[in-house]
Every structure is written in C-alpha cells, then in structure tokens.
C-alpha cells in the first residue's frame, strides 16, 4: 500500500469546537426541512445560510471496500501528511504487515497526530450526530452535506493509544536504504525535497523498476533536495502529490504573506495564521526572521501555539542529516540550522502548548499567532477566530492549501476581519513535472485523472496538466489499473558446485552453451539451481518409490541442436542422396523444400524444421538425418 492519508475535508461539514464556551456557536438556530419539520435541529445548525453538523468532527477514511486491508503486507509512507490514517488501518482492519517510513516522518507524523487527538479530546462533546447520515435523510439536506460521499464510513478521531500502537508497527528506514520485501522486490526511499524525511519510493525487481513519486519539491527550502537521478530508468513512474494550487507561485505567496502581515500589524491589527505545527511554518518563520527588521516589526510578538509547538521547533533542529546542505553545514559550526532558534532566544517568537496558562499572561497585541488547525474546526485557532473575527483591523492569512478557505470560514460568518489567501504549496507544479519527466524519462507515467486535463475552472490552461510522451495512464477512484509491464525474467542463482560441473561449448565466437541438469529451488521468490541429487541405488520398498517421485526421471538426454540450415547446400545434399525433383519455395518465415515425387514437404524455419511425409517413417528418418548433418549437437 502506497501511503495512508486521511481526508480531513470532511470536518468542514461540522461546527467548530470552541475551546471556551462560545455563545454565538451555541446559540445557532437548528436546521429544519422546508416543510418545517425540525427533527434534525439537534444535529444540524444553520449559520449564515450554511448548515453544519453539530457533533464531534469526523474523518473520511481510505477506501476499504476494494481491498481487504488485512491482506496488505507492507505500507510505504511518503511523508508525515500521508500517514494520518494509519491508526485506522493498523488497529481496525486486521492489518498485520509492516509500515516503512523515515525517522522524521514518524516523529513529525506523531506530532501531527498528537496535536489532532489533543485538539479534539480536550473539548469533549457529548453529542454525537448520526441521524443525518441516513441515506434517505441525507438526500434532503442542502449542499454540501447532501453531496458528501461515504458518510457512513466517516469515523471519529483515533486515540493516543491507537496512535502509539500504530506507530509501533513502523520500521524506520533511511534514504537509499534497500529493503528486501519477501525476496520479490526491493524497495528504497529517496529524498523527495518536500518535507523533513519526505520520500519517494523505488520498487524494483532485478528486471523491472517502478518509481512512486509523491509529494516532491524542487524548490530550495529546508529539506534535503529531491533525488532525481535515482528515478531514472523506471518502467513505470507513479506520480501523485503535485501542488494543489498550480497557479500560485510559492515565492509570490510568501511575499504576499509578509506584506499583508506587515500592513495589518502596522495598523494595530493582529494576524492569525492557521497552520500545521510542522512544515511550511519553518520556512515562514525563516522568512519573517529576515523580514521583520526591514518592515520595522522587531517589536511585534510572534506566538506559536500548539500542544506540540515545543517538540516541533526542537525536532526541526536535530534532524540535521535530513536537511538541505546549507542547514547541514550550520550544524557543524555549530549553529542551529533554523533561525527560529534565534527568534526564540531574542523573545521575538514565543511558543505555548495552549492559550491557557502562560500565554494569557504574556499575550500582547498587536501580534502574530501561528496555530492550528487549518480547517478552523478545532484547535486554538477557533478561539482566535471568535476573538478577532469582529474587527476589520485583524487579518487571517491562510497558508495551508489543504482546505478551501471559504469553506473553512463559513461557520464564522459574518466576519469583519480581513481574509487573505496565500496558499504556499511547495510541491511540484506542472512545469517542474515536465522538466522532471524529461530528466528521468520513465517508459510510462501513471497518475490521477485530474492531472491529465486542465482544471475545470481554467480549461484553457493547457500548461496546467501533465504533458508527456507516451501520454500518461490515468486512474480514478476505485479503478483497477494494470501497470504496463510484464515480469518476463527472473534472476536465478547457480550453486558453485553445479557451475563447476558445466562444460561450455563455443557455438560462435564469444558465445558458449552448456547443458544443465539441476533442481530449481524456489523459496521466498529466490530461485536457485542446485545440483541434482545422485540417483540412489534402487533398494525397493516405499522409500525408493518416493525418491523417484521427487526426482524427475533422468532419461538419456537427447543432444541439443543449434545452427541453421543452408538451403542451397541442403538441396545439393538431397540431390546427392537421390532426390531429383527438389523444388524450393520461399515463405515469410523461411523455406519449403518440396520433394514432389515423394510427396514430401520439408518446412525450414528459423527455430523449427518439420518434415511432412505421408506415413513413410523410413523416408522421414532419412530426411531427418540429412537435416541433422547441418546442425551442431551438444
């Protein structure tokens, strides 16, 4: 199984979970059907024309109908964002396999899961809505609830215990490490340049190579650069995890982010940045580190609030080997690779596990707050949205591309604060993909259907799709796709003593052949040729019988033939042997030699010769011997 992501957009259908009681949210009117029927008013609430489920947010799990997940042997994880569904798989499906991921992926993935669990568990909600999921009722609901797919499979968040158990099933791997999977294939993670420890995977046998490229970046940010060279010579390249906002250039967005932040703070407003506790936030802090002085913002406090804020900031500094070259060299100076260390030291950046406690006493405005969750449905961000939403001086800047910012804002309407959308997605865009494919030159590209056509809203943008030759094979949800290659060859090992016994015969200069009699031993997809057991003396009884069952009969071997038959000389030979009426016809595959009187055909082709004569075994044997004279035997 390649990756194990969790679709969190389902949470956008739910009301936010406020950290402290929100009169506004708790007083939202219940929703009733057009005919006035209000049986759903406890489950569904209405806010500015949108309907939300008033319940603990639920997540949409990976597809489970198509495949029995208990039969999955291995899960390969690309990056920490792509493992958020892991506890659902490992703990509830009978999965007994192994998960492979790099160390930063696991550590930061754990932080993301921990934060998620914490956000949801710390505001227990008594109510659990399920009535609306009834298919007959769902049909009556307004969009987008009406159109939500597979709502019956939506699940509440996992627990920390499940997270720990899931993570214990992960085996850590390093870049370029070769991992044998049951002898069948070898898998290798490669740096993908997108996040700390993010990987692309190579899955290869001795003769075939499949690359799985997911969540990669060619930009120079904090992680190790993408390893492109190792992707070369792939039979198939599975390509996914491209940027979600192909029209937004990350550099331009960072510029927008900084300018809007400065303008807001300058006017005495606060800036709220809903974000994940790891990833782009490191780059944003680094940008701000360089920017705040030039923008005269040195005295503005920056707060980073997350249950895992401290661990995230510290982890980033210790994964030196997973960082880009510049940051790695800093470690040897020794200096912290990320400048946020200095921001913390100079008290410009302060971090807190939650807005309770120290934060409330330190809190100073105007300020900039980085906090989760980017869906705006849970986490400390809900509180700041409630607190700052009423003033047009404040600004919320969306930088995470995973959620539609308009949908995220829907339960907070009407909103006075300014909203800026600066999605920063450093993953590959289509221009970079096209360069990558030119460089790597896979025989086939396989990708989601969406990548093979321009986005529906910009159908003229031919540049916003994968353009490669041969055209990419696309797949859609729940579609089964046969990858365009066949396993034709297997590597077979030959035991030394058997190799010793071979007597090669040169059939052409440089090419020798030898006959081999051996036992092919196959175990764990490894094939070994072993010397055949010596024929045991017949001792009679059951034992002998069993032995002969096991070992194929060692009949006297017929010699093997090689070479080709020169037709002219063959005809001469026939004539010499008394066949006078020989006629030769050329065919597409070779020749037919006709012995008219004997009513006999000799069909000579590249890899076969047939003698077709009418019940004259003597003649056939004569002719066969003539043919054999022209071939080599060994």
């Amino acid at each position, binding site marked *: 199984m390649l990756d194990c992501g969790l679709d969190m957009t389902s949470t956008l259908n739910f009301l936010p979970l406020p950290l402290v009681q929100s009169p506004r949210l708790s007083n939202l009117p219940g929703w009733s059907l057009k005919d006035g029927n209000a049986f759903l008013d406890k489950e569904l609430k209405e806010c500015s024309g949108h309907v939300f489920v008033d319940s603990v947010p639920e997540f949409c799990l990976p597809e489970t109908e198509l495949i029995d997940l208990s039969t999955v042997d291995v899960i390969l994880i690309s990056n920490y964002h792509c493992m958020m569904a892991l506890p659902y798989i490992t703990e509830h499906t009978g999965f007994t396999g192994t998960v492979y991921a790099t160390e930063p992926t696991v550590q930061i993935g754990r932080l993301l899961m921990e934060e998620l669990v914490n956000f949801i568990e710390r505001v227990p909600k008594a109510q659990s809505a399920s009535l609306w999921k009834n298919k007959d009722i769902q049909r009556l609901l307004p969009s987008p609830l009406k159109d939500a797919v597979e709502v019956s499979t939506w699940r509440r968040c996992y627990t920390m215990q499940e997270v720990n158990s899931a993570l214990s099933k992960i085996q850590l791997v390093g870049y370029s490490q070769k991992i044998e999977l049951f002898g069948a294939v070898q898998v290798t993670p490669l740096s993908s340049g997108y996040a700390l420890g993010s990987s692309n995977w190579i899955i290869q046998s001795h003769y075939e190579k499949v690359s799985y490229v997911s969540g990669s970046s060619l930009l120079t940010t904090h992680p190790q650069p993408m390893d492109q060279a190792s992707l070369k010579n792939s039979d198939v390249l599975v390509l996914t995890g491209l940027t979600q906002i192909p029209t937004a*250039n990350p550099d331009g967005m*960072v*510029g927008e982010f900084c*300018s809007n932040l400065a303008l807001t703070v300058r006017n*005495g407003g606060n800036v709220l940045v809903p974000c994940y506790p790891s990833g782009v936030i490191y780059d944003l802090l680094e940008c701000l580190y360089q920017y705040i002085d*030039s923008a*005269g913002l040195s*005295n503005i406090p920056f707060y980073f609030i997350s249950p895992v804020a401290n661990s995230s900031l510290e982890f980033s500094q210790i994964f030196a080997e997973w960082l880009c070259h510049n940051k790695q060299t800093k470690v040897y100076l020794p200096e912290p690779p990320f400048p946020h260390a200095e921001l913390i030291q100079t008290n410009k950046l302060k971090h807190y596990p939650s807005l309770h406690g120290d934060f409330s006493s330190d809190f100073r405005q105007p300020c900039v707050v980085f906090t989760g969750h980017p869906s705006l449905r849970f986490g400390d961000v809900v509180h700041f949205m409630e607190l700052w939403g009423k003033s047009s001086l404040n600004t919320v800047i969306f930088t995470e591309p995973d959620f539609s910012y308009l949908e995220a804002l829907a339960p907070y309407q009407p909103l006075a604060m300014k909203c800026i959308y600066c999605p920063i997605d450093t993953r590959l865009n289509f221009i970079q993909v096209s360069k990558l494919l030119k460089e790597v030159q896979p025989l086939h590209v396989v990708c989601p259907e969406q990548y093979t056509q321009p986005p529906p809203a910009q159908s*003229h943008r031919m540049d916003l799709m994968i353009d490669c030759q041969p055209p990419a094979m696309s797949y859609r949800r729940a579609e089964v796709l046969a990858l365009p290659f066949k396993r034709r060859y297997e590597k077979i090992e030959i035991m030394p003593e058997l190799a010793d016994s071979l007597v090669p015969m040169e059939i052409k200069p440089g090419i020798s052949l030898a006959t081999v009699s051996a036992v092919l031993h196959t175990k764990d997809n490894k094939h070994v040729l072993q010397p055949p057991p010596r024929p045991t003396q017949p001792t009679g009884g059951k034992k002998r019988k069993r032995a002969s069952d096991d070992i194929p009969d060692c009949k006297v071997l017929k010699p093997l033939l090689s070479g080709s038959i020169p037709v002219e000389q063959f005809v001469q030979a026939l004539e010499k042997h008394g066949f006078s009426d020989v006629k030769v016809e050329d065919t597409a595959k070779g020749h037919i030699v006709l012995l008219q009187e004997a009513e006999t055909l000799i069909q000579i082709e590249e890899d076969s010769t047939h003698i077709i004569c009418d019940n004259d075994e003597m003649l056939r044997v004569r002719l066969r011997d003539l043919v054999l004279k022209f071939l080599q035997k060994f």
Partner: protein
Amino acid sequence: MGRGVTGLAPACLRASQLELFSPGAPGWPFGDFHALPGRRLCGRPLQIRQVARPGAGPEAAEGRGAGLSSLIMDPECSQLLPALCSVLADPRQPVTDDTCLEKLLDWFKTITEAGSSLLLLQENPCLLGLLCHVLKPQDLSPRVLAFSLRLAGMLAAQEDCFQYLQGDSSLFVASAAGQLLVHVLGLSLQGPAEGHPGLQTGDWPVCAQKIVSHIEESLRSAATPQITQALNVLTTTFGHCHNPWTQVLWVRLSPLVARLLEKDPVPAAHSLVDLLLSVARSPVLSSSSCGLWETLAQTLSHLSPTQAGPLALGILKLQECPQALRAQAFAVLLQPLTCVLEATAQAPGLLDSWDGTGGASVTVDTLLASKAACVGLLCRTLAHLELLQPLPQRPSPWPQAPLLGATVTILRLCSGSATPTSDAGGHLCAFLVGCVRVQRAALDFLGTLSRGTGPRELVTQVFAVLLEYLTSPDSSPTVLKKAFQATFRWLQSSPETPGCSDLDPHAQLFLRELLPVLPKRLCSPCWEVRDSGLEFLTQMIGRWGGQAGFRRALLASEVPELTEQLLRDPESYVRASAVAAMGQLSSQGLRVTPASPEHPGGQQKSLLAELLHILSTDSEGFPRRAVMHVFTQWLRDGHADVAADTERFVARVLQVASQDLDWEVRAQGLELALVFLEQTLGRPSSHCPYAVTPPVAAPPGPLAQALRPLCRVQLFEFAFRALFDCDRPVAQKSCDLLLFLRAQTASYSGPQGSGSVPEVASVEAALQRWQAGDQGQPLGYLEPEVVVAVLRSMDLEGLRGALAESSDRVEKSPQSLLQDMLATVGALGEDEADCY
C-alpha cells in the same frame, strides 16, 4: 539595480586622484614649491600607479586610453618598442590584458594621425617585423593577431605607407582579415576608379581584382564561416566607402549574394541582413537601379520570421525606400502579433491591412515550434516595434489600436488570464504563462505605445492589465518595475480634465484601485519591489503632487506613512529612494504625522532633522547622496523648513557634507552651495552658472554685505577644501564655483593684493598646507574682504586647466603603457617593474 529617479549611479571602483599639481606648472595656484607627500621626485618620470579601492570614483567611469597624448614616438618609447614587439610575437608570452593592446592601438593612431605612418615604419622596423611574423602559421593568440591586423590596416590607410607595405606581398596573400581587405580595396581604387565611375572591375588594379575574386570565391563556398567573412567584408566596404566604384562592385557581386537566398536554410543570414542594410543605406547604391529593392523583398520572404525581423526594422528605418517594400517589411514585423490576436479570436483589425506577405503559416510554425522559439520571436518583435514607434519615418497609418490589443493579449497570455479559443492559442498560453522575458518586453512596448492614443475601451484594458500585473503576487521584481514604468507613462498620457490639470476621471478611478496595491508593494520582503514602488511614487508625486484628486487619494492611503518608515529600511537603495520620495512628499505638503504602533502618539520628528541624521550617520553613500539632492531641491524651491532659517540650514548641511567620504555627496554639497550663492548674490545673467560673466559694476558696500551670509555659513571654507579634494570632479566643481564668485566680485573695490592684509597671507598659508595634504586646521570665520583678496590671488584658471587634464596622464603615458606591458610578461628587470 539601476537608479532611475534619483539619478545616482552605483559606486564602482574609485581611484584616488594621483596627480595634483606639478610645482611651477600652470595648474599650481601659488608660486612656491612644495614637495607633495607620496610622490617620488627622482630621476625616472613619475610612475604612480592607480590603485583601485572601493568607493565612488569618477575616474573609473572615464573612457580608457584618452590620455595617450604623445604625438611623436619619443626615443624612450622607440627603445622599448622592439622588446614589446618580440613579446607580442612570442606565443609563449601571452598578453592577457587586451585593453593594453587597445591602448597601444590608440597610441599608434595618434601617432599616425599626427605624422607619417611611413616614417613610423621606417624608424621602427620592428613593427613591420611583427606584422610579417604574425602571418606565419603559428600558435599566436587571436588577440595579438587581431591587434596586428588592425595595426596593419591603420598603417595602410596612408597612401605612402600603403605603397610601402605593398612591397611585402605576403601580407595580402596570407591575410584574409576583413578590415584590412576593405582598407586595401578602398585604397587601391581611390586613384584609378574614382575618376572613371564606369570602369569595370576587369580594369581595376590587380590587387583589387584579387580581393574581389577572393570574395566571390568565399560567397560561392559551402562553408558558412567563409560566406560570413565575405559578407562582413562587403558590409564594411559599403558602410564606409560611398564611391562610385562600390556600385560596380555591387553589380558584380549581387547575383552571388542573391544566390545565397536559394539555399535552405539561408547561410549566414545575420551577416546577409547586415550587408543588405549596409547597401540600402549607401547613398551610391540605394539611388541606383541595381535590383537592390527586389533583393531586399526577396530576402524578407526567404528568411525565417526571426531572421527577417532585423531586416524589416532596418528597411523601415531607411529614409527612402519603395512603399511596397516598406509595407512588406512592416507586415513581417506585425505577423507574430497578428498570430497572437488570431489565436485569441480577436479580429486583428488594421494589422490585416499590412499583411501582404502570406508568411503567416511560417510565423505560426515558429511561434508554436517550441517555447524558446516562441519567446524569442515575440521578444524580438516587440523590441523592434518599440524602436520603430518613435521614429518619424514609421509606417503610417500606425496601427495603434491593434498593437495595443496584441500587447495586452500577450500580457494576459503571460499571466494566464487570456482565454485562447484555438489549439494554437492554447499552445501559446502554455508557452507564455509566467514568461518573464516576454512580460518585460511587452510592458516596455506597452509603455512606448502610451505616446499614442487608443480607443477608450482599449485604454481601459491597458489599465486593467497593468493593474493585474501590479497586483499579482507572481509578478517578478523586474516585471513589476516595468509595470510601474508603463503605468506612469500611461497615466502621464491620459488626457487632463478640461479646466484643471488633474488626472482624468478614468485615471483617477484607476488610481483609486492602484493606491491600495502600493502599500503592499512597499511592504514587500523583496527590496527591489519596495524600491520600484518608491520610485514610482516619487514620479507620481512629482507629476501630480499638486492636484487635488491625487492628493486626496494619496492622503487617504497608508503610502506616506509607509514611505517614512522606509527611511530606515535595511537596504540602502531603498533608503535612498525613500529619501527622494519623502523629499517630494514634504515639498508637496503630503507628509502625515506617523501613528505607528511603535510610536503611539509620538511627536513628529521634523523630516529635516531626520534627513540630516541620515546624512551624518548612514553608512551607505546612496541615501546620503539622495539627502543632498533633496536638500538642494528644497533650497531651490524655498521649502518651508529651509526658509525658516536658510543660513543655519546651509551651514549645517555644508558642515556635514564636507566630512563625507563619498565624493558625490561633497560634489552635491557644492551644488547646494551654488544655489545658495545664486540666491544670495542673484542669478547669473548667463544660463550657464559657471560662465564667467563680464564684471558688472557692483557697489562695494552691498557686495560685502551680500558676501557676509556666505561667510557666515562657511561656504568658503567648504569650497576651498573641495578645491583640494582628492576626487577631481569635486575639485573641478569647486574651482568653477570660485571662478563664478570671483567674477561676481570683480568690481569689488576691497583691499587689493594678497599681501596687503595679514589675514590674507595666513589664509593662503593655510590653503597651501591643505593642498599639501594637511587639512586639519580650519580657516574659521573669514571676512568678505579676505575672501575676495584670496580669490584674486589664486590662479584659478590655471588650476582649472590642470584639473581638466586627465588626472592619470602620467599613468596613461605611452611609455608607461609599454613598460607595463613588458613588466607583466617579465621582460623588464624585476627591480625596475612598477607593478600593480
């Protein structure tokens, strides 16, 4: 980044002024002899090398080789020359610095222009030896070869010398170098063919015939380099010689040239275009009926769209040319834009009427062949049209509207906002999205198009696309700069409201949308963006600062406050631009009280004080120079803060400026001093402030009175210090200022003679000490009489003359050059070498 608005050139290397005044030389202002520190006054002539050091210096900007003034070869140089020639002829001693060779050529040029080349060759046989030597096949560097060929060409330019050279036939046999061939051809035909224009090539001198045959042979060759060489020779020939024989030559060779067009692809297309244009520009050839226009038309249709562009532009620039050919050429230039319009389903309109070539499909093929081809063709086309637009001979009617439409469309294709309606359009869009090169070219051209008008809806589209670029986070800093420039030009060209010189309502509407964008740009993390935003702002205030509509919009925005904030930007260019913008804002009364979170309710610091602070403390030169420009302008305009106490202001500024390490700041200080001087004494009658006007009878009393403020602000101390400034432009400027002042005071009947007042003597003594490098002691307050007496006793004219001479004339002497070249290859003894 260039400094557009403030006109401040970035600092390059600066060289200290090496040569001050030779004792007793005309430039020496006083009679006495003083040994100058740092100079060697022993036997060998001064060999003070320029030592480049960082900082701003005028010397670096000067052309090289201007100071090789010796007109004859002196014996010292003659002695050095053989050694140098053998160094040049030796491939084992490579000459790495070809500027030396350039200088050497310059020197030879001066010598040959002043005297006889023949004599030069006869007296220095080593030169001929070198010329002969380089012709032998060997591993000589192309630099030396080129040098030798150019030298030979230069020498051959004189008839007697040409004859002398002709004696060595191997030169002509071996040399195929274009320049020389042209010279030789020209010279050989000067005598015989000139008198008889009808003379056929068969009657030409043997040597000319040989050259023509060689060219013919080359033109027939299959090797492109040979063809290129032949074409280049012809281009130079027709470019330089306009004698009747060139017509004979062209008639003979044009069939061969035309035959090149039959090849596919056309070989050496670039050189062919150059040749044809050179022929077309030749008055002898273009007026004759030698099939030139037909060849040009044929070439236009044979060349690829990319190659045909420069030819089309060249044709359209011709003063006289058949109308049909002009139409064809213009069609070639317009073709790519027509394709763009068609690809986006817009009627090309007037562009159609120019399209008579039928080359559309080739152009479309080029545009769609590859991204590189598409981008290249569009950029070139836009650049050509931009060059063509302002010319009086540009085609008429000028298709302004379709060109505007096409340019706007290209910009939209680049930003991804255009909607192509065909496959071709889709491809164009895919090629152009995000292409910075095309964006820059299109914005430049769009700016140029602002000189014409356009239909209202198109102008609206222009502003819309400009706003799109100014707003887009994806606009690169350079694109943004161009967008700002184009915006300013379009705003400038928008019609003014009748009755007042304010922006027209449409432009005002645009401005209302633009002003919210500007603060964001001023807050950009990219300093180039902040800088171009400020430059744009300064231009805008300069143009509309007095207009009510603009003032209202500006004051309602955060722009003035942000601009003030940028005075403390970490980037010095931005600080400089902010200084210029603040100067303008303040001049127009548009500065607002800052209410930043850091200074809530804080007292507004006077901008004058803030700028003075920058002038005295900023570590970079640009902001300080910008402050001096603003102060000068303020003084000139009578800015309120300045007018409050002008003397105090000038005194303070001069005091700070005199201590500045940047010569441009000090020079600008003199500019400010001059403005003050003019305001105090009255404007000079001449337009040129430095022109020495005939003495006007000025009554002594009032003049002394008038000089007193100058004395109080210590202007003279500043000017005298500047007179001995180590940077020449400062010294020159000061000298001019003092000359002007002296002329103003000529009629002043104060104490005459420098020795008559003891104070004068003491000032002179102090000045001599300053000149000697000891500038520690200030002059203190000077009475007007003393100043006048000192001014009269100084040889300011002589000083000006000395300063006008290149400061590094010793260093640039031919002898020094020869020694340098020999020293770098170690041909001189180490102890003698005076190396860098």
